[in-house]
């Protein structure tokens, strides 16, 4: 293996404080094989020095470099750009974090620090020789479509925001409600299948009876809560019980509710688990206040396990109480019951007062927001994770709050977690913006440090396919695993788990990792 290596030592990072013996390091570098140029610069982050480095690199026609500097994240952008100008592939540049790994933490032990630095240099050189050039590719997004599943508060907000950054929004709505939002609106439509990857999805959408294909660059999941799927003894006992949002709509439309009105947090208060569905408190309080203001004579009860009047809705809580709304807290033991034979009275034990109450009611309202049943179908179609209680699971917060683990798929509102209208709207806007920005790029960047399969070794055991969070591996025409490069994020999970060692990760191949480790362990410090 022939190579022409340039070694760059950054004084700013590796010398300050005066700890390491730069001359020795330089000497070591010069003496190692295949090193054609060694430079010591004041600061690699400094434009002038970068220019010098590049000049030298061109002149000595080096083909790879080892840079001893500081934290990768800080220097790599400019450094790599500079080297690209010198026509050197970014994956042939090995950055060594001398500053944070050697100089700073070992300030009191110069000898050991020096030895460690030298070993790290050796390791970097070993690795540099093994590095291979990699090209990043890009692919045009075929459409500007942002498909938004669900046209609730969050969905509509998302549509508005996405449209602002020039995306074509397609809103899928299960019912036939008419809306004023930009873009296409498909009623009676459901997402039933999907293929592809962030930027170029192929979605199967069931509109009415027929199923049609639709290309999409990004997907926003805004299915909201599963209001319609209220389950539990109370719901069973009282046929005409309504979910909160319905009650609210009726109220807006000027309908006078049959009193007294009883609002219960969940239809399954004595449920096996300690399940208290995060009851849309702000909405409930808003509703009862309006109700009380409209009809002061009406008796209104709110029955709950946990009063989650977050933030400013605490004030609404007070206001409601002052208006004469009766709040009753219960616990498992005294959970509300309704005699199915005469479903007009509800028995509940007021926990704080300890008395058992018999409440006659005209209207029974449930404020809980169960997880939406459709989530399962959608998560299945898009192959994204869910939580145990049936809502969509958000990806790592390292990425962003409203994202799923899969790039290009965003999620907002009660699909993630039961929320109030107001917050759902904000999340919708956030998700919409992100989707819009994602589409605006118009290109998918991919490749580089991604996984690759050696077909001869593959046993098509499907382990990689089951393990990958991004659906990148698939079984190709040759009945061997292949990697969908556009979907691969380069985490290497499939590589680590492949029982036949048929997959390897570019830039972090087994040999590269183990050789580096070996060299590092070779040093004595």
């Amino acid at each position, binding site marked *: 293996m022939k190579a022409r290596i340039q070694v760059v030592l950054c004084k*700013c990072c590796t010398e*300050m*404080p*005066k700890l390491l013996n730069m001359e020795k390091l330089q000497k070591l570098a010069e003496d190692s094989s295949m090193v054609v140029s060694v430079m010591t610069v004041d600061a690699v982050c400094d434009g002038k020095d970068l220019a010098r480095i590049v000049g030298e690199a061109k002149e000595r026609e080096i083909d790879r470099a080892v840079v001893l500097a500081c934290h990768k*994240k*800080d220097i790599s*952008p400019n450094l790599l750009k500079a080297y690209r100008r010198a026509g050197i592939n970014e994956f042939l540049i090995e950055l060594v974090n001398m*500053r944070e790994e050697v*100089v*700073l933490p070992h*300030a009191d032990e110069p000898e050991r620090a020096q030895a460690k630095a030298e070993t790290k240099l050796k390791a970097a050189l070993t690795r540099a020789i093994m590095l291979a050039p990699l090209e990043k590719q890009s692919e045009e997004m075929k459409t500007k479509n942002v498909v938004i599943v669900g046209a609730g508060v969050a969905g509509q907000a998302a549509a508005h*925001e996405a449209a*602002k*950054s020039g995306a074509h929004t397609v809103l899928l709505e299960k019912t036939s409600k008419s809306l004023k939002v930009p873009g296409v609106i498909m009623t009676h439509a459901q997402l039933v299948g999907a293929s592809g990857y962030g930027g170029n999805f192929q979605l199967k959408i069931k509109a009415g009876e027929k199923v049609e294909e639709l290309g999409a660059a990004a997907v926003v999941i805004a299915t909201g809560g599963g209001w319609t799927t209220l389950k539990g003894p109370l719901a069973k006992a009282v046929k005409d019980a309504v979910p909160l949002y319905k009650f609210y709509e009726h109220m807006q439309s000027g309908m006078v509710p049959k009193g007294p009105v009883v609002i219960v947090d969940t239809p399954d208060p004595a449920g096996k*688990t*300690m*399940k*208290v*569905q*995060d009851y849309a408190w702000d909405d409930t309080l808003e509703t009862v206040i309006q109700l009380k203001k409209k009809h002061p004579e009406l008796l209104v009860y709110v029955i709950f396990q*946990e*009063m*989650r*009047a*977050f*933030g*400013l*809705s*605490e*004030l609404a809580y*007070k206001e409601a109480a002052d208006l004469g709304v009766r709040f009753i807290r219960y616990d498992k033991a005294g959970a509300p019951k309704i005699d199915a034979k005469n479903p007009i009275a509800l028995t509940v034990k007021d*926990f*704080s007062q*300890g008395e058992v109450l018999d409440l006659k009611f005209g209207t029974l309202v449930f404020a809980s927001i169960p*997880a939406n049943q459709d989530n399962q179908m959608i998560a299945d179609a898009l192959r994204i994770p869910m939580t*145990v*209680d049936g809502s969509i699971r958000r990806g*790592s*917060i*390292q990425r*962003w*709050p*409203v994202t799923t683990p899969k790039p290009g798929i965003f999620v907002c509102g009660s699909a993630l*977690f*039961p929320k109030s209208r107001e*917050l759902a*709207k*904000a*999340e919708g*806007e*956030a998700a*919409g*913006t*992100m989707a819009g*920005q994602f589409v*605006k790029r118009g290109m998918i960047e991919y490749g580089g440090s991604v996984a690759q399969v050696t077909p001869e070794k593959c046993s098509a055991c499907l382990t990689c396919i089951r393990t990958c969070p991004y659906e990148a591996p698939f079984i190709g025409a040759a009945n061997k695993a292949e990697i969908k490069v556009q979907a691969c994020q380069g985490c290497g999970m499939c590589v680590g788990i492949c029982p036949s060692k048929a997959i390897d990760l570019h830039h972090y191949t087994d040999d590269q990792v183990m050789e580096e480790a070996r060299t590092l362990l070779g040093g004595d410090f």
Partner: protein
Amino acid sequence: MNQVLIVGGGPAGLTAAKTLVDRGTEVVLVERKESLGGMARELTCKGLVECRNCGVCFAMDRAGEILREPNAEVLLLSEVASATKADHGYSVKIKTAPRYITDDCIGCGKCVAVCPVEGKAIFPPTGSGQPRLHWIDKSKCLHFKKGKCDKCASVCPTHAVDFEDRAKNITRNVNAVVYATGIDPIDACEMSRLGCGILKDVVSSVDAERILNEKGRLMRPSDGKAPKKIAVMQCVGSRTVKVGVEYCSKFCCKYATKMSQLLLDTDPDINLDFYFMDLRTLYEPQDEFKLWAKSKKTVKLIRSMPSVVLPGKDGKLLLRAAGETDLDITETEYDLIILSVGMRPSGASAELAKSLGIQTDKSGFAVANHELESKGVFVCGAVSEPMDIEETAVRAAATVSKMHHQKEVGT
């Protein structure tokens, strides 16, 4: 060339800045303190093995990104002196106080060690704040007071101390302002009956977080021993007319529950009692915390607000509280008591806010409205209402998206 001024380098400001920068808008971020991160700097990550979604790392990671961002101008130790309406936005004057430390600082802390001033005049960046540079408080530093001391300068291995550093006045023309000055924690000592400020081992949650963030362990301030019996008390300062904070601060239950879990992760044989009014944990439909508490023998959830904390025998603390349903009074001994304090909006009624035309509601929070936004002033983050980091991030992104729209309509 459109530039946006962001006031406040906390979670809200940072998220807004990042969102804007990502779409090619240039931002000027003005932070009063010496490092980015706002409240998040001093908050601890609540996970040991498993993430508990406190969102702290999210804010701090953004801080790191913004500092690397070429399109973001970060001004630390700075205040916006004035913002006057100009065509296409505002002309803002920014005062930047000198730091007296250059970027060469490597955060070794030798300078702090040698500083002769009582309570030090040179400080490391607060908590996990970014960037990791020290700074000198001119008002305390002997070099400026007496004009001779240069101990820090002489000991600094990278000669990063620069007494010649001068204050700067910067003027920028921006076409929008994001007002995200965030919050101030309520001082637990406003509730003197709970022993804060009188008894050493009564700490506010803010202190607890700071210590956890620094050391990863909680110690008794009095004798530095590891506490074995801890009480966590909710709604200190929130939901109390006395302190004048009638609203619920929203995030206290979240951080307190997660912190309690962290405490038991680090030391399983801690006995922990959790006093609360209503358990308002965020994003937990299953009441995970209740389930968790049930599964631990050493954890008790007590629905009661303790009335008073008294000194007990051999350095312990005595906490008096009424029972959950019956009203008989019980007294329990603790090694350490953590008061979960709420928050107040910070700088919602500051001069700058007024000059920008930001009004406040009766609880003192800044009010965001369309009229303001049409003038290019956007209020976001916890200064507008109580919220946790994750919600802050979401809302900041949402707010900024409005601005995007404004510009297309406006200029």
